[in-house]
């Protein structure tokens, strides 16, 4: 019986123990098993991010598919000083923003959302905490139509994904002070839009911008 010299199955299994950085180093060496393991780990968080930016599950999955493809095609350009997450999030968020820009006008028709929320109001008593996730998402999509793409991305990365400002700056490709600026303006716009469109949910904001 000849000696078993190499097993693709064993090779793939070994990558499961690797760190994200080790996976990217493997990908730089054109190891497809490393890419498969990265897809295994990162598909869910990337789909979540793209979905929150775009609000469309199918588009989110397409964005993530292209993200992995671009990551492979540009694998030699990965800088080891970066966190792997930063690099991958950057590719995905840039793609999502491109799609968002292309279909911006579709987000204008939000009147049905408002009517639906008003119709369910007696059940939840104008209490944001008792609203379902779908209603929260609908409100966000409507209010966020007043944000620039960058503001929306910074708000989601910082406030929803919980990334620190430093990492958000790397993902977005700007300085930390610019991130703070985007975040400040995003919050201000969202609060103003909430007061204007949903005063019943605006709570303590009725008197001004500050919480």
């Amino acid at each position: 019986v000849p000696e078993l010299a190499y097993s693709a199955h064993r090779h793939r299994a070994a990558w499961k123990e690797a760190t994200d950085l080790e996976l990217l180093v493997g990908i730089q060496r054109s190891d497809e098993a490393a890419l498969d393991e990265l897809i295994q780990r990162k598909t869910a968080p990337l789909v979540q991010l793209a979905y929150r930016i775009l609000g469309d599950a199918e588009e989110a999955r397409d964005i993530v598919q292209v993200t992995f493809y671009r990551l492979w095609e540009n694998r030699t350009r990965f800088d080891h000083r970066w966190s792997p997450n930063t690099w991958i999030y950057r590719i995905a968020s840039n793609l999502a923003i491109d799609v968002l820009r292309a279909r911006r006008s579709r987000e204008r028709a939000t009147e049905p959302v408002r009517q639906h929320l008003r119709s369910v109001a007696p059940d939840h008593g104008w209490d944001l905490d008792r609203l379902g996730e779908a209603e929260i998402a609908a409100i966000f999509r409507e209010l966020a139509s007043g944000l620039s793409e960058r503001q929306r991305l910074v708000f989601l990365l910082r406030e929803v994904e919980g990334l620190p400002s430093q990492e958000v700056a790397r993902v977005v490709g700007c300085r930390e002070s610019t991130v703070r600026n985007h975040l400040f303006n995003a919050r201000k716009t969202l609060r103003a839009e909430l007061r204007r469109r949903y005063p019943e949910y605006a709570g303590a904001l009725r008197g001004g911008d500050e919480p």
Partner: protein
Amino acid sequence: MSCPSWRALLAEREALGEDPRGFAEALAHLDGCPACRRETLALDPLLAFRRLPALAVSASDVEAMRQAVAAMRRASRVPGEAAGGAPLGGRPIAGRRAGWLPDGARSWGRAAAAVALLALGLTLGPGRPVPEPPSGEASTPSRQVQEALFQASFVEDLDLADARIYQVDSAEMQVVMIVHPSLDL
């Protein structure tokens, strides 16, 4: 953790433009305390967006993603073969919907041809110089096997996750055998 002073925490956060010390712990407390949630949402309704819904991603979704990405990479290596020669360009949306998943019969034929060519190439002995193979961190195939696989670049198109590769060395001949159920002739 007892209920924090949300008014002070949120005012400090607003002034700093950053999360103040202890804010992460306060948020963890918030998720399990209805009274604090009511208070914070009254102070800052934008905190409700922390509950933006997550999309369920199943194991089959991940496998579909892996196959779709593999298909895009294959298509980009074979100009004109993918989707009637449609350019990829890394554009979103096009990939999965265009149906670039590999054709089973074609893969099978390519696999059989790959084995035959690989065995033939190796029995003829060393030929032209081969590029430096990637250093294997996760497994340790012999240099001979790595060179053979690297030289026969079509092998990567096989995409046989469970393939086993055997090596037989002799003074005059080196043979590499790829074993996989799909190659059973």
